């Protein structure tokens, strides 16, 4: 799926957060959105996901304007610190994945993903008994369940240890090699070792720059 964003701007009231942002991503690209806290990274994702109304500017998914787009199952999304999820009420990993599956996703698909993410053994555990790293793997499995074309990861390594971080970045790279478009939002500087293809940098003064990474590995 092609993602085409042209001259996107967004403001909360009179406070302008995003100014004239333009990017084009093709299927299989790997975009890192980099910037300090408060530079508008999550606001950008909210625009991309249709939560924030885009005005002015345009977003097209495969030549469909975002206002007419309704194939959201093509997106997988792992939110920042899982703060939207209510994980105090008892629900097992397997129950969560079962209710998060569309008709096309079978039990076998779920088990394969759990195995791939090395969390096969915790499928009957309660969500609220999991560690940060395990929880993150569960949410990646959930985002991948319905075979998305684009995977959006918002500050995914904020609350996990080094070992889980390495596993996470490796998994993202593997998924990208399978042809899935990756959009990774981070405020971390540890991005040099990632095999991203594009980088969007968001600055303190709410300006931004979009660059294609050279094959040599430098931005």
């Amino acid at each position, binding site marked *: 799926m092609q993602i085409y964003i042209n001259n996107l701007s967004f403001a909360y009231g009179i406070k302008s957060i995003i100014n004239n942002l333009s990017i084009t991503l093709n299927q299989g690209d790997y975009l890192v959105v980099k910037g300090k806290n408060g530079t508008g990274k999550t606001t950008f994702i909210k625009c991309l996901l249709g939560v924030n109304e885009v005005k002015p500017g345009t977003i097209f998914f495969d030549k469909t304007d975002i206002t007419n787009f309704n194939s959201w*199952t093509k997106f997988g*999304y792992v939110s920042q610190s899982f703060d939207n999820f209510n994980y105090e009420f008892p629900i097992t990993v397997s129950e969560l994945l079962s209710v*998060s599956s569309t008709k096309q996703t079978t039990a076998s698909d779920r088990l394969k993903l759990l195995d791939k993410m090395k969390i096969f053994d915790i499928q009957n555990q309660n969500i609220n008994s999991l560690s940060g790293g395990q929880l993150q793997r569960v949410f990646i499995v959930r*985002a991948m369940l319905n075979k998305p074309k684009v995977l959006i990861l918002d500050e995914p390594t904020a609350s996990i240890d080094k070992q889980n971080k390495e596993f996470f970045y490796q998994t993202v790279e593997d998924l990208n090699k399978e042809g899935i478009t990756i959009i990774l939002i981070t405020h971390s500087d540890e991005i040099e070792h990632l095999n991203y293809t594009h980088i969007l940098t968001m600055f303190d003064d709410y300006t931004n720059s979009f660059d294609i990474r050279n094959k040599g590995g430098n931005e």
Partner: protein
Amino acid sequence: MFLSFITDLFQQDFMLRALTAGVMLGILAPLLGSIVVVRRLSFIADTLGHFSLVGISVSLFLSSLGFSYFFEKPLYLGIAFSVIGGLLIEFFRRSYTNYKEISMVIVISLGAALSAIFFALASKTGSLYQYLFGSILTVTNYYIYLILVTLGIVSLLFIFFGKQIVAVSFDETSAKFLGINVSIFQLIFMIMLSVVVSVLLEAAGVLLISSMMIIPVAAGMRIGWSFRSTTIISIVFSELSVLVGLWLAYSLTIPSGAAIVSINIIILLVVALTKKIINARRISKIDKNQIK
């Protein structure tokens, strides 16, 4: 006392009706209650209950004007107003996106004010007490049918859309990526909840509806190990409190809603205490093993 209760249960029509209504409500209240708790909307049943009371008071007012139909069947307007209350909550929630609880305060205040006005205007206000605290022992056949229809509709919704209901309740943001229209879901859920709250009104009373929905779930959450087990345990606790509460209400001539809710609270306390004792023993066992 208990034996005469059992005999009356199957010999007296009113007791059999109370039992039938109680058993069905015992399923309905915690089933919806579990979703309400997951969505962190525990206060909503109270709000809808107050708005449903507006419908009851309007019915009494209309019956005092000569429309006797509304006196016999006040719950129809109760349901209609509860749904209006639910829609008003949704409307205000969208206006105050960052202060969603404000919507409840607006609707509950409006509900209480309108109820007071129409109860004052109606000349027949004798049943106000019944609607505040509930009376399952006096329910009629029409009420039984009403619960049966509601239970049927809610069960069908859970059978066909149970997965989506649970998915949206746990995580509204991600529900979009499952192809669920969250706005439509919220609207349907609010209407379903409004109807259930009004149906509970007659048995539990406006002041005790939320207790019947929430407290069994609060107890179930303590010991449930999955969503399914928590919901089933909540229903078992709810049924237990209905049966024991009915017996107490009959034997001691106290309001049935109050009796049922009191048993619910006792169950919650027993569960919480037992869980605490078991956890303390487990920790001391682990400590002893570490010392060894």
